[in-house]
């Protein structure tokens, strides 16, 4: 497999969601790295420098908002696009996601096809 394919970080504490997202992304030609909580997501992002991160909002240790904020503070990950995957449906939660620095959000339950299209759209813009 060529290593120039974009690398996507998928961070979610739910095994099923992780599997669904990873399968769809890999089928569409992306490479993936995985994290199961906010701390791990941050560490993996800093170490592997993925091209994009898909972060669950409600994760153990650090939530998706906080991970996004911390990514924005680091030089190495400041420009990394972030898509938040959230079960929260209030507009205020969506606004909070954008305020924390996220580029886009997807509400759970989600369409894997739509998620992939959004990833493509964001990476295509860059």
């Amino acid at each position, binding site marked *: 497999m060529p290593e120039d394919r974009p690398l996507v970080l998928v961070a979610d504490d*739910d095994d*099923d*969601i992780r*599997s*669904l997202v990873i*399968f*769809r992304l890999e*089928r569409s030609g992306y490479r993936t790295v995985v994290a199961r909580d906010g701390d791990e997501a941050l560490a993996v992002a800093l170490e592997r420098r993925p091209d994009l991160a898909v972060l669950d909002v409600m994760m153990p240790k650090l939530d998706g908002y906080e991970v996004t904020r911390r990514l924005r503070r680091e030089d190495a990950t400041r420009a990394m696009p972030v898509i938040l995957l959230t079960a929260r449906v209030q507009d205020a939660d969506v606004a909070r996601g954008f305020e924390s620095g996220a580029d886009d959000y997807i509400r*759970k*339950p*989600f*369409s*894997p*096809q*739509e998620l992939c299209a959004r990833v493509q759209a964001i990476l295509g813009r860059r």
Partner: protein
Amino acid sequence: MQQLFAWSSVALGGGSVTFVGLLVFRRIRLYRLEVERQEAERRLEPLALALVNGEEIEAVDARDAGVLAGLLSRYARQVTGDSSSALAGYFERSGGVEREVAALGDRRAWRRAAAAYLLGDMGSEWAVGALRDALCDGSRDVRTAAARSLGRLRASAAAEELVGVFVTAEVAHGVAGQALLGLGSAALPALRGLTGSDDPRLREAAVELLGLLGEAADSPLLVARLRDSAAEVRASAARALGRLAAEDAAAAVRAALDDRIPFVRAAAARALGEIGGRDAAPALLALARSDHYDAAQAAARALVRVDPTLLAAAGHEGFGPHVSEAVDRAAIRS
């Protein structure tokens, strides 16, 4: 006699050992089954994920089909769009929907409830008729699972029945309400029809839900309910108009400030706080000075939004405790 005691002891001891042995055997068997299921799940996961993504897979044997169905049901709760359609198609083709619909007739309530629940995850419209029937099941668990599944399937045809079980509490209130909200605008035709029901409980629930799901065009229907013979319906109508911020209904809601029932007056005052418009301010101020605690408090609080200037002036002129309280609250917020 002693011999009898001795034999009894031996028999009891033997029975206990056999019983414990059976329990241990059963436990080991359950553990093995669980390990086998987990192994099968790991093996079948790629197939399940391929199905979610709309890919065709080879047929699996009957034992694997059960494990695959469980895995797919879990995934079905997490996905929407094309993936949901792909899963529904699989369950229809593989006979899963048919099997669970048949299980709704099982003599064991837990099996019927499990089937009703699973049918919602399968996402097939084929199950709607059977699930509507299951709303009349003798077991509350089955009715609740059926209501939840009808909401997941967005079965607009079941809207009237769902309002019915919501009102009569034959299904847990939260589940029935969530199901109706899940139907979204598809429930509106049924809800509009139910506002004219003979049963005031159905009218009340329908009006309340119209406030959550309805649109501006529902305002005349709700205004008509402000003159309903049942006070609960009138209060619901006021709340619904407030939620819809129906400006065209402001005059009618203002008139409800004179309703003879205090909780209707309170609901109307809160609604005017949502609708806004200074025309309501004098009537709200008058109500804020009235004797009924809830209505007066609601009116004073509504004034904070409707006309803060009038409220502030009234606060200095001894318009009563509720106006003073509202002035203080407004000051704290600003």
